[in-house]
């Protein structure tokens, strides 16, 4: 069973993504802020990290850079979840080391398929 780490500060959106992924057979671990997200990533070495960009204190860009600079985690795909707010956000997301991004609000019908694109053969 593939493990997905979700770093998301909003409780309801965290529950939503967790529910959807668990229903599709993933094992989900979750963190509510960047710092504990990085710690949890080091501990669990997930198959994919779902990263909210608009996080309090340490923003998603910083978290992505930290994750990619860790030797244990450099290969783990990161998918940013973002409100795709302003000009240049997409470039910044990719420049920070994310492998892709999903725009909020997520579409529950296509969400899981989109994520699996970034997991290669390891999915499920």
């Amino acid at each position, binding site marked *: 069973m593939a493990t997905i780490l979700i770093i998301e500060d*909003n409780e*309801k*959106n965290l*529950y*939503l*993504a967790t*529910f*959807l992924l668990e*229903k599709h057979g993933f094992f989900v671990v979750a963190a509510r802020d960047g710092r504990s997200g990085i710690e949890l990533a080091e501990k669990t070495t997930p198959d994919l990290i779902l990263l909210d960009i*608009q996080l309090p204190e340490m923003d998603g860009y910083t978290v992505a850079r930290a994750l990619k600079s860790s030797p244990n985690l450099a290969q783990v795909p990161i998918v940013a979840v973002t*409100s*795709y*707010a*302003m*000009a*240049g956000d*997409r470039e910044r997301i990719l420049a920070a080391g994310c492998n892709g991004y999903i725009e*909020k*609000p*997520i*579409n*529950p*019908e296509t969400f899981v398929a989109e994520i699996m694109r970034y997991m290669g053969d390891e999915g499920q």
Partner: protein
Amino acid sequence: MDRRNKRRQRSMKITINEIQKKYLEVVENVNCIVLRWTPDGLITFINRYGREFFGYAEEELIGKHVVGTIVPEKETTGRDLRLLLQDVCRHPERYEHNTNQNMCKSGKLVWVEWVNKLVYDERTKKPELLSLGIDISKRVQAEEELRQLNETLERRIAERTAELQAALEKAQSADRLKSAFLATMSHELRTPLNSIIGFTGILLQGLAGPLNEEQTKQLGMIRDSARHLLDLINDILDISKIEAGQLEVAAEAFDVRRMIEEVLEAVMQQAAKKGLTIGAAIAHDVSEMVSDRRRVKQILLNLASNAVKFTQHGEVRLECKTQGDTITFSVHDTGIGIRQDDMDNLFKPFQQIDTGLTRAYEGTGLGLSICKRLVERLGGSISVQSVYGKGSTFTCMLPVVYQASSA
């Protein structure tokens, strides 16, 4: 001595006298100050012009020192003229031209430009200075006024520059504030919508358990309303981003046919519900274009869903062809059409035509104004032809290859 010689001498004497008189007349009447003075500073000669200029009688000057009569001890600039004169006497060759302040009997200060030369008095065999002076007070005053004017101007320019700088900083900080506000709103509005749309979707998919028919129907309504709300938010954010100059566009190659298919798929259900025929006619030479896929699709989707929205019977048809560097998309419908009077307001924000009718058609009234701005941002143009009651054709022309620098 014979008489002829005497006569000649007399005649020469007369001639010399006449010449002397003539020279004296010239010197006395010339329109400049002619001054002779000894290296000790004593005046030995000053012409009439000079006397009148300084306001002295001849006897008040001859034999007097220049300092205290026609030369003040100090200039208003602070320069010590006694020292200057000493230097002139010592090194007259350095002072062929010299400008300094002088003084009239009345106390009035004047500026005089002097030409100086060392000469030898034939009689005394002593050196003297021959100085010619021209009054340049008016010029100096004009120069001073000009200098002050320049200073005033420079000060004004500096003040104005500072004002502009302050205004610019204010505007920039307002811009930053606006951008930050947009980013925050975008995030804050989507976060709750994310869970509304997400959970509705989960429930409708039956992932949280089976639903009865009524529950499915009502959840479907929640989902549609939430999606509509999302459309509104997206439109408002789009127009705000455009207004704030925050809209950046990408230039990537993409498959035009595939994109048109996606647009058709998106409006298919709605068209089918109303019993409309929907289709596309794509010219055989249409393949790829280089532009912002997301935005081009947004434009077409907007035009296509408008066409479906405002058509009750008949068909909606998308056409696409290329001609040279231009790709043309048109969306035809057999809908309610647009009155000639309404054409001008069509592309303006918040101007959904015919407010009475608006009730029947959901929308922000922002769609077409966003389309127009997006098309223009992508280097193209948009136009409309319509017969009221018969239908409309929206035509959008874009460069096949969008060059970011040309925007």
